[in-house]
């Protein structure tokens, strides 16, 4: 499995699952451009890739802002060429029970987790269509299928991403472009570190494997979907959740 000669754009790559994905794609030979919202974050991505001897660098991009996406992509295309692999990983949570949820919390999560996927995908399609090869991999979540109290906004956005991905897959499949989702369960990242011990304990009880997942265990599935070997997989959501939810 080699991604030699491909440019991969990974959003939200400074830590957690995004960082693991960036490193895995780079390990397989892709030139990886990872995004972060701050210059410090972008620098950390560059340093992290360099430390492993990988090809790639960090780029400042805020996926919630259309202008920022446009500027970032222009810079990346100029510097490295059109990305043929796109991993939409950047995401935020603003959890609250619906009765207490604010309009801001709703729109911020929809904008960052769903609208961003529409924008970045649209921006890379031309290059992929020209190359007659492309991979769009969107990071969803187990809660898109399950639902989760306190995450109405996040569940809506992630379920939206899955529906969007299926449409995109149908539109572009005759151009050699696939679009898929990877839906992680509870992975050991900063996002799940926010949970308290009680929530953590309750979570472990419903995970048959009895442990949280590692970011690398999500990254390896993303890498498969990015490979030539996954050319006939499209419009699919692959669950990576230790068996806690089986669709």
């Amino acid at each position, binding site marked *: 499995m080699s991604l030699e000669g491909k440019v991969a754009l990974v959003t939200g790559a400074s830590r957690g699952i995004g960082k693991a994905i960036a490193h895995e794609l780079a390990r397989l030979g892709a030139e990886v451009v990872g995004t972060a919202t701050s210059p410090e974050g972008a620098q950390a991505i560059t340093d992290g890739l360099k430390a492993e001897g990988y090809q790639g660098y960090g780029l400042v991009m805020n996926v919630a802002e259309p202008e920022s996406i446009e500027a970032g992509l222009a810079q990346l295309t100029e510097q490295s060429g059109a990305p043929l692999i796109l991993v939409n990983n950047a995401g935020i949570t603003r959890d609250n029970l619906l009765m207490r949820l604010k309009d801001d919390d709703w729109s911020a999560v929809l904008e960052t987790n769903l609208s961003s996927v529409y924008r970045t995908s649209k921006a890379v399609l*031309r290059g992929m*269509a020209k190359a007659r090869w492309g991979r769009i991999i969107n990071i969803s979540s187990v809660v898109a299928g399950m639902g989760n109290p306190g995450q109405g906004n996040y569940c809506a956005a992630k379920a939206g991403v899955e529906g969007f991905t299926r449409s995109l897959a149908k*539109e*572009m499949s*005759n*151009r050699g472009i696939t679009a898929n989702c990877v839906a992680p369960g509870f992975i050991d990242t900063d996002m799940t570190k926010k949970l308290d011990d009680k929530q953590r304990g309750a979570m472990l009880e419903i995970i048959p494997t009895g442990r949280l997942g590692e970011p690398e265990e999500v990254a390896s599935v993303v890498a498969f979907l990015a490979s030539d070997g996954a050319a006939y997989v499209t419009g699919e959501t692959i669950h990576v959740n230790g068996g806690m939810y089986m669709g």
Partner: protein
Amino acid sequence: MSTVEERVKKIVCEQLGVKESEVQNTSSFVEDLGADSLDTVELVMALEEEFETEIPDEEAEKLGSVQDAIDYIVAHT
């Protein structure tokens, strides 16, 4: 400098993967040259790029043949 007609035909050949000899001015993109809906979108985008112009969706829909495209470009650039 090539004429608008030559440039349009070159793009049509590239985008639709057809031979120059198959492309007549009267050729319909869909009926004669086998374009699908995605091909026509890509074709319009390629024309926009080549001639540095923007073709609004409602105009793009009317570009059914090679001659339509040539006429549009001549009138708008």
